[in-house]
């Protein structure tokens, strides 16, 4: 019996110490981690609505029109007191190749996308991960030789494509000559995931806040709006 107690006791004691230590670390860090997340999101929100620099955000939670699930968006007001809506931001979730890609989208009061920022993705590096890649001109040698150009603030080329877009623009194309969002080579799935999630979210938002021209009846988010097809958004 003594042996038995010793076995159980040792394991339990180690677990006790471990859990104590861990919970201490957890207490010390999880706030920071969550704070970071909040910050990141908040910052992303301001960035994607950079066209309205003074925005003040208020979160609204509604039942989505399509699935009945919760749909969260922020409305941006000119100031804390103001009723004037400058725009909206929402988070789009798209199932990519190996992860669910999260993108924050800023929409102005007319329903035009102001900017987007992908804040989470775990796609294949070199392929799907290019949705957040900044096209750089600097090579390693430039950097080592100190003649690298400053590229801070440069946005990923894939994200930039969404800026100023409206609902009708949001479909993936594979060649530069066509109109639409140019897919990342070899990563159509990720490109589709981002584009379609933004489109679906935008459609939802527009129908909820009742912006004109929004496809109010848009049951079943259109999977592939044909070019020049059943006029969803207006051409801007």
């Amino acid at each position: 019996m003594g042996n038995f107690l010793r076995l159980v006791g040792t394991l339990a004691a180690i677990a006790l110490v471990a859990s104590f230590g861990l919970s201490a670390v957890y207490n010390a860090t999880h706030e920071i981690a969550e704070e970071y997340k909040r910050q990141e999101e908040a910052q992303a929100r301001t960035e994607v609505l950079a066209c309205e620099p003074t925005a003040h955000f208020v979160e609204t939670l509604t039942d989505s029109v399509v699935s009945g699930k919760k749909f969260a968006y922020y409305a941006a007001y000119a100031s804390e007191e103001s009723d004037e809506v400058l725009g909206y931001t929402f988070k789009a979730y798209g199932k990519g190749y190996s992860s669910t890609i999260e993108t924050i989208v800023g929409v102005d009061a007319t329903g035009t996308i102001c900017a987007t920022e992908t804040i989470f993705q775990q796609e294949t590096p070199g392929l799907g991960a290019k949705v957040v890649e900044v096209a750089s001109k600097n090579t390693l040698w430039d950097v080592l030789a100190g003649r690298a150009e400053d590229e801070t603030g440069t946005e990923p080329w894939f994200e930039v494509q969404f800026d100023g877009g409206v609902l009708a623009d949001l479909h993936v194309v594979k060649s530069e000559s066509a109109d639409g969002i140019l897919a990342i080579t070899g990563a159509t799935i990720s490109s589709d995931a981002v584009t379609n999630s933004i489109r679906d979210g935008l459609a939802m938002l527009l129908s909820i806040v009742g912006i004109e021209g929004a496809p109010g009846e848009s049951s079943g988010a259109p999977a592939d709006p044909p070019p020049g097809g059943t006029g969803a958004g207006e051409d801007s």
Partner: protein
Amino acid sequence: MRERLIVSASPHIREDVSVQKIMYGVVIALVPAIVGSVYFYGYRALYLTVLAVVAALVTEAIIQKARGVPVAIRDGSALVTGILLAFNLPPGVPWWIPVIGSIFAIAIGKQVFGGLGYNPLNPALVGRAFLLASWPVHMTTTWLPARGGTLSGTALHGIDAVTQATPLAVLKKVSEIIADPSSTTHQVVQAREALADLGSADTIVNLFIGRVGGCIGETSVLLLLVGAVYLMYRHWIDVRIPASYLLTVAVLAWVFGGPSGFFTGNALFHVLSGGLILGAFFMATDMVTSPVTPRGVIIFGVGCGVLTTIIRLIGGYPEGVSYSILLMNVATPLIDRHTRPKKFGEVKSSG
């Protein structure tokens, strides 16, 4: 009489065949298709083929030298690999594609395993799969229309989603449009027209002759068959592999490949299009990477057929020949292991 006679084990006479002879036989069998590729796509096809062959031979020689084994590029196997690799490339790829592909095919696909006879996977297809994964754009967009035909082999009434595509790619796209509930009626009508086009006698003839877009060596079924018949006549390929392969694809395509329910698929279209004929007669039959047992070759052929159809119908690529052969190559040792023929006079205890 010699002073010192030769002593060896029986038999003391041998049939007049050799590895070299068989390999050059395959090359001869591929000549019609090479000529055809020049006719359909111009000298660029030959240029790419030569590049692939030279790169394959040089790589083989260099590695053999480095390994300290006799340089045996004259056995013709690297030559065949080079040609077949080039045959699996779109005619418009840049020059370095066949070169790098051949290097990879020979180095990683063959020589790391000890060279001829020891590689588990088909080197040419390893090379192709490597290229496809590494430079997907070059490998899927650089098609050229064949002389006397169009890229897709059909007229294609204004379906704009698929202008730059081979018959199978068109098939994939229109099937997607038809299956997609959000497609407009107009699109579906267009797609159905295109589909009918693909199945028309015209297209079938074009496919057979080779007046469609596609990889360098795969387009002309006719010319490939000429070579294949020669190989079969010489007993240098095992007919059971292409036979079971093609039959499986035909049946499955007929059963599941139709746009309007079971048993409506166009088997002939599926058999003639893409790289199936090339793959079935020249690549699935690569003896090094296919089973040796009589039952094994049938399983191999059927397996290739099943996988090809799956990839074509519901997979991510328009064409599945290379991947299905590679996958069955992977399974070959397992198949061989479990399909040992019953020995003469063997009574299986299990009955």
